[in-house]
């Protein structure tokens, strides 16, 4: 047991059980349960290799920054932090709630998913209002065009197995639009990181907080759900975003903000390029070779289909 975990375990009043949950090769999640509580009193994240320690370090920094807004945003509080150089440990407050249902069928959205979209949309607006974007090494506040330029500049790092040159060209073409201010984005806002307790939405895994377009979190929530049986990733994405119908209509109405079609196009394809960079293992979170290969097989047909259609803007109808 890590020294910090042991100290917290000793200090927790009416402690009853310590669970080891959701462990990855070099990361472990421990949850401490106290008597009479349905959610954990605290949660400890442990990492013992350098990439994952960097992820934890980043999450700790973000949560320290969000400390004053933790209640409004439903974010955990960072209770303690230790990095011995070999192992890092971050202790967070426990959050109530459960992962909400998210059923996105081929032609419709379940009622629970509609409610979740509604809550999520409000939450995204709250995050953008409460947390300003940090302008690092740049005097002017960053814009979405700046982010696109940064991504295009590092295109050489993206391996050849990911043919995203055409996608980046489409992003570059939209950069001539009037500047679109960047806002704070959670960065990993998918349904597995959400906990709904009644009407409140709690969000975990804050290591990806950073600047992005106003719809980045919304795009991730919509596109990260696995396609239903019998549908490919592209077929689901087409029904969600590119084909007129009740599903696309519902998703368009639930978006946290309305953007003109060129900005919508820039926002979506910039999100897609950053997402593929993440799938390729070039972002902060490490990806295994197996995950990279699986994602590549899933997303290549999407890229080809979009390229054939000349990268249409979403919600065109």
């Amino acid at each position, binding site marked *: 047991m890590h020294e910090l975990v042991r100290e917290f375990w000793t200090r927790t009043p*009416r402690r009853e059980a310590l*669970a*080891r949950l959701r462990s990855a090769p070099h990361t*472990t999640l421990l949850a401490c349960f106290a008597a009479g509580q349905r959610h*954990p009193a605290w949660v400890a994240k442990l990492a013992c290799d350098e990439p994952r320690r960097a992820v934890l370090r980043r999450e700790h920094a973000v949560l320290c920054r969000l400390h004053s807004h933790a209640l409004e945003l439903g974010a955990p509080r960072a209770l303690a932090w230790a990095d011995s150089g070999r192992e890092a440990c971050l202790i967070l407050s426990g959050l109530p709630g459960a*992962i909400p249902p998210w059923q996105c069928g081929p032609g419709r959205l379940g009622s629970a998913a509609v409610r979740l979209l509604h809550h999520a949309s409000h939450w995204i607006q709250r995050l953008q209002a409460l947390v300003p974007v940090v302008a690092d090494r740049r005097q002017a506040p960053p814009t979405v065009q700046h982010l696109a330029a940064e991504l295009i500049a590092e295109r050489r790092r993206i391996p050849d197995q990911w043919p995203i040159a055409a996608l980046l060209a489409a992003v570059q073409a939209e950069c001539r639009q009037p500047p679109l201010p960047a806002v704070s984005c959670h960065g990993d806002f998918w*349904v597995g990181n959400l906990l709904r307790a009644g009407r409140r939405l709690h969000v975990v895994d804050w290591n990806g907080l950073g600047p992005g377009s106003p719809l980045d979190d919304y795009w991730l929530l919509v596109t990260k759900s696995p396609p239903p049986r019998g549908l490919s990733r592209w077929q689901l994405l087409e029904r969600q975003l590119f084909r007129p119908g009740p599903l696309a209509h519902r998703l368009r109405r639930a978006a946290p903000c309305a953007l003109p079609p060129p900005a919508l196009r820039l926002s979506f394809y910039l999100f897609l390029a950053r997402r593929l960079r993440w799938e390729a293992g070039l972002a902060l979170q490490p990806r295994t070779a197996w995950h990279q290969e699986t994602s590549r097989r899933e997303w290549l047909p999407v890229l080809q289909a979009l390229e054939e259609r000349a990268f249409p803007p979403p919600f065109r109808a």
Partner: protein
Amino acid sequence: MAPASIAPAVSPPHRGGPAPDTATARGDASLGTGSVALAAAPNGCHPPSAEQPWLELRCACGRTLHAQPGRDAGDISCECGNVLAACRHGLADFAPAIAISRPAPLWWPRLMAEARRTHWRQAAEGCLPPPLRDDACQPNRAACGDVLPLPPGARVLVLAAGLGGIAAPLARQFSVVAVEAAPEPAAFLALRARQDGLDRLLVLRADWRSLGLLPGQFDAIIAPSWEMAPAAPNGADRPRPTPLAWLCAARDLLAPAGILYLAAPNPWALRRWRGPNHVRVSEPPRSIRAHSYFGYRRLFRRAGLRLQSAYLCLPDHRCPLEMVPRHPAALAFRARHQPWQAHHPWRAWLHRICARPWLWPALGGDFAFLLAATPPRPIRGAAGSAPPPPSVAASSHPPPIPLGRAAFPAPNGPDSAA
């Protein structure tokens, strides 16, 4: 978990009072404060240090030895001339008399040669069959280290250490004595310790019950695959002990407030609930009465052990990714926080309904138990009182010390109440 009640990084040599006849003649202060000069070790071993693990043994002549076999130490021998173990290449070989009738697999020589030439991990990944490769290299093998409330430097005994999947990771935090009866895995583990620079890992090739270990000297004992030890014949020539005798022998080695960690399979667990990564190991048919949660609990009670916590190991007890305590809130929390449930609401609902402490231990997965020795109960009367738990080394017991519940608490849980 109070630090005061845990053995310090360097434990006093005699917990149960001074031993009357010691071969190395060291005072208590020689280990603790260093105010007394260390006596020269007549048995050829290094003087005890804070880093390297040590053993308290009893020779057949009745003398007590404090052995600290180091990397390049000589044999461990008593003043009476009895050689207890030969120390070669970081391995203390206590068991020249044990005959393992099962022949070593054909890939052992290749594995050892490759490990000596390159590195143990490279050799294991190249030469070992998949289940054994996981046993040796998978970091989740040492998952118990995350839930054991031990201070750094605590003395841990790992039984049936095998290829070191548990002992080696634990040796980065604790002072570990790893016991393995088979010669080939013991040699591999010693090589692994040498290559990784694990100074706090002591590898013994021995049958731990015939070692002559003095009682009450370990803060934790870990039996990662307990079902293999007592009941199943594995080719050794001597008969195996019953589970009850095995548990009593292990209990006697525990220090006051020490912990015994046992992992055991649940042959009745549903494959679907275990998860996709479960490796099916062929198991003999077992009785539901003995090999269920309640059967194990009954056995522990008979052996004089108190169940502090019971865990569900998922997908299996050999290499657990998750260890969920048998606690209503923990089970419900785990059932509510599976990301796949977002897309399968009916299955999620069923999953939550089934996450009950009375159902999951029966069908959910394998078991891991944290046990503590109960103090001997006074005999109130001849009729109607339970007999004291059996002991294999009653004469060499330390005086009964009240167990500090604060030392290793998981105090108010349903298991401890039971």
